[in-house]
């Protein structure tokens, strides 16, 4: 199962999304490599192992925070919502 497959199940076209993303590259050419990476991930099969790994990682990080161990990262998605 891939993200493209999930989109198809919901009634959306992954091909249309990929085309839209490629149109963005025409406006911002330097974003081309990142957009192509996104499109590859769109059709790649999902890995349950990585999802499980994230779920096991989060409690460890929560414990670290509780113990005062702060390990920051820069996340653009932490910007204004």
């Amino acid at each position, binding site marked *: 199962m891939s*993200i493209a497959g*999930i989109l198809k199940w919901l009634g959306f076209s992954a091909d249309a999304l990929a085309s839209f993303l490629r149109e963005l590259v025409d406006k911002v050419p330097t974003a081309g490599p990142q957009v192509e990476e996104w499109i590859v991930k769109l059709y790649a099969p*999902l890995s349950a192992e*990585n999802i499980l790994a994230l779920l096991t990682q989060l409690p460890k*990080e929560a414990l*670290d925070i509780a113990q005062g161990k702060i*390990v920051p990262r820069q996340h*653009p998605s932490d*910007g*204004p919502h």
Partner: protein
Amino acid sequence: MKSLKTHPLETFAILFALIFLVAVALTLATGPANASTHGVAAAYIGAGPVAFGDADPYHGDFEPAVSLSASLAPHISVVGTGAWGVCNSYLRGSGGINLCATDTDNSNFSVSAGIEYHVASKAALRPNEWCPGVSIGLVPLPDRFPRFSLVGCGWYGLTTNQSGASLKGAWRFPL
């Protein structure tokens, strides 16, 4: 299932959620947390359009916004945003936790899922409620403008069952 195909806001939110799943499944870093050169806290100033659910009288607006974030762990951040609706003259705020699945190969791109409490100054955007959501951020020009990012966010109100979405360009100020 509701008619998601024709509701653009829910489409937006679902697409963001699916992109988050992709990022989690394919780019998760499970190795030991490394010391980061980035500070814990950052402030952002940004602006962009926002869209609300069909049941909201304000279907959309344009919002200048400020936000604060604190990255506490590689995958856990605390975030908060305050925005002003230019057309409808409202204040909207949100705050909560983001669980981040940052692409370890590209620190200029991240996808997060989390939950925030949304508040608003006008009754048209109430009741205040908890909203799970997903967000995606990209620094499109990291060499020339490393502090400029694009942030897209979709959320779903647990009380109103209404979705919303925003897209903002923002400038980051490390604290």
